């Protein structure tokens, strides 16, 4: 379902992150599970925090609550498709005619998301915001960038599109992305050992982390996404269309090439062009005409340009990370993923398909750690600066 993996978040907007007054008490109550039977942090007991009496008489309140629950469901399901949730969609599918209630429903949904899942709907920055960001603080990458990112988000340059991401403590998020031996073992044991493994070319990839996209993602193509993001990253965070294509070609992906999709996809392959178009639509990468990246007003035009290589009119294009990539994945995660991807590849990914998941899991781990570390350092060097955390 929803995807909240590597996303983290430094300082959620005040309205969403305020620890509820009762939270610390809850921590104490939590010691004794028996005494907890009134539930806590759940979608249902939002009201328990104070305005319960009011709610009983307020019919509109019940409606808001119901719609907020619907919005949470919509957010979870939409996230699974990896498409950003647009405000119009919320209005259409959740609010119905009473669109005026948007803010109340939205705030309530945020509260449920946070209390129940430790997640929030984060509004993606507009391209204009991002560009201004990169242009002004290009050199003081890390800290300044983060700070500016926050400021932009708080400013009224909203894109009215949202993604789900984790608002748990950064240390928890980091821990949840670590590889754990025990999880890896259980995951390997979980791989269905049906009697039909012989002619099946589907082998899920596991990472042994608490949060795992192995089963949700169509990994072979996600690998390409991370590769593209990495190419842009190591190229100084922007890459010309011709350069990107040349790199991809060298990696065995010509413009008319086909990308293999995993068994969990309903298609065996997708063309590179179609894949790039999908990534643009999902907000992972962005393609702009050169010299067209300053004014936010031109954003609309960008959406329509074909993804084909520099077109007949002689215009040249360049690629950057899309808003979603920065908000959801982050540069560090891309570097890590690509490092893992390459180490895994070297271990002979394609050939050990028929071996059990456990053996595969073990193989992945052996010697991989060291390679990973080296690979990460190399990527960081190539990026020309410290890798940015999630914005």
């Amino acid at each position: 379902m929803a995807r909240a993996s590597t996303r983290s978040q430094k300082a959620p907007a005040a309205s969403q992150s305020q620890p509820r007054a009762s939270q610390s008490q809850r921590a104490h109550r939590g010691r004794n599970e028996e005494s907890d039977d009134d539930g806590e942090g759940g979608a249902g007991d939002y009201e328990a925090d104070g305005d319960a009496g009011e709610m009983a008489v307020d019919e509109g309140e019940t409606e808001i609550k119901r719609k907020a629950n619907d919005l949470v469901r919509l957010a979870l399901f939409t996230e699974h498709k990896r498409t950003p949730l647009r405000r119009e969609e919320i209005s259409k599918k959740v609010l119905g005619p009473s669109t005026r209630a948007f803010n109340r429903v939205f705030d309530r949904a945020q509260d449920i998301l946070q209390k129940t899942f430790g997640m929030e709907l984060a509004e993606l920055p507009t391209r204009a915001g991002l560009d201004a960001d990169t242009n002004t603080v290009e050199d003081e990458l890390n800290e300044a960038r983060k700070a500016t990112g926050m400021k932009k988000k708080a400013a009224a340059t909203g894109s009215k599109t949202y993604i789900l991401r984790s608002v748990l403590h950064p240390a928890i998020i980091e821990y949840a992305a670590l590889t754990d031996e025990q999880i890896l073992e259980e995951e390997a044991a979980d791989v269905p050992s049906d009697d039909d493994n012989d002619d099946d070319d589907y082998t899920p990839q596991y990472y042994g982390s608490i949060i795992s996209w192995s089963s949700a993602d169509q990994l072979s193509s996600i690998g390409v996404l991370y590769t593209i993001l990495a190419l842009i990253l190591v190229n100084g965070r922007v890459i010309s269309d011709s350069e990107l294509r040349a790199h991809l070609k060298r990696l065995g992906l010509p413009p008319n090439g086909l990308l293999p999709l995993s068994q969990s996809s309903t298609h065996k392959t997708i063309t590179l062009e179609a894949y790039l178009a999908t990534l643009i639509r999902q907000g992972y990468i962005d393609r702009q005409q050169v010299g067209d990246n300053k004014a936010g007003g031109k954003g609309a035009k960008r959406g329509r340009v074909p993804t084909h290589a520099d077109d007949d009119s002689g215009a040249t294009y360049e690629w950057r990370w899309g808003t979603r990539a920065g908000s959801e994945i982050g540069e560090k995660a891309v570097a890590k993923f690509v490092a893992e991807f390459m180490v895994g590849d070297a271990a002979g990914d394609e050939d050990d398909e028929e071996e059990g998941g456990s053996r595969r899991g073990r193989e992945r781990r052996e010697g991989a750690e060291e390679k990973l570390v080296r690979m990460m350092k190399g990527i960081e060097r190539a990026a020309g600066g410290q890798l940015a955390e999630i914005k």
Partner: protein
Amino acid sequence: MVSSDDVQRLFLQAILSRGILSGKLAQTLWEKCVQAVKAAEPDISVPYSQTKDAWDAFVVKVNKSIDNLDLEFRHLHDETTGREMYALVNRKGDEIAQMATDYTPAEIAYFKAIIELIMLAPRESFSVSSFAALREVSAIKPKTNMSKTQAENVLGSFVAKGWLLRSKRGRYSLATRALLELGPYLKSTYPDEIVECTICMEIMTHGVACHTNNCKVRMHFHCFTTYRRRHKACPTCRADWPESANEKPLVPVGEAAVKDGEDAKHSGREKSAEDSDEEDEAPMDESQGTQPRTQRSQRTRKTKVNVDESMDMDDDDEEEPVKKEKKSSQPSRRSSRK
């Protein structure tokens, strides 16, 4: 601020990021979530113990938190391995809404059609040959231009995502995820076909049936094994049972109900070579004499198939003559199309 509630929040995130997982993995994840929270805030007090009771209490707590969202962290024993499997299930709507995020309407229609073939399969075999599954593409409504090659990919995706099982013989049946998440849909759409395990009362599509005429006892393999350790006879009719669920005279439920080469033996020339090769659906009721499955005789097609539209699609349906003969006694879905 880190709170002990972050354990269940992180746990839900972990579950959201996975499709279906074993109880063992789920419990490991819980433990790791506790560790993650403690890593972030060493002084925090988090209730945790490895006992079954503690785990069950945690699941109750998790479910309480998502109850208003019509979501449920539900578990079921895998019918083939007996392993306890968990998934986050969408309780709302009796439709196959869960799949809507992953598949196109045509693919969902196809999935429903496959489910129908599985649920209406003769003699509680709850499975469909790949040949019949692929042929079903032409019956999807609204009509789709999905090719058989494409349909093969789609079926592969259903298997990879844990909705369907594909056996060595190439037959498709319902996987645990489908039983977990689509239980209400199956029960409301196929009330007459649903078989429940006598022991655990859960829906059953793989298992064993008592051989006595009209005895309704059905058991999952793992439920049979547990039961058989203490009892030698059927709980209802007291008939003696062999030690193993696979032994005669017990009757298999699921794919094993369709025997290798059985098609050719029973239906003679009517089967095309192609069909028997692919172990296509066996005729409806040849062996009913030994297996009283009375409730299955009322089998009717639940999903409407446009008769006109299917007319021109089944030209190559060579088993039609067989089915037609049986039409009067048992309206099979195939014959009802003509």
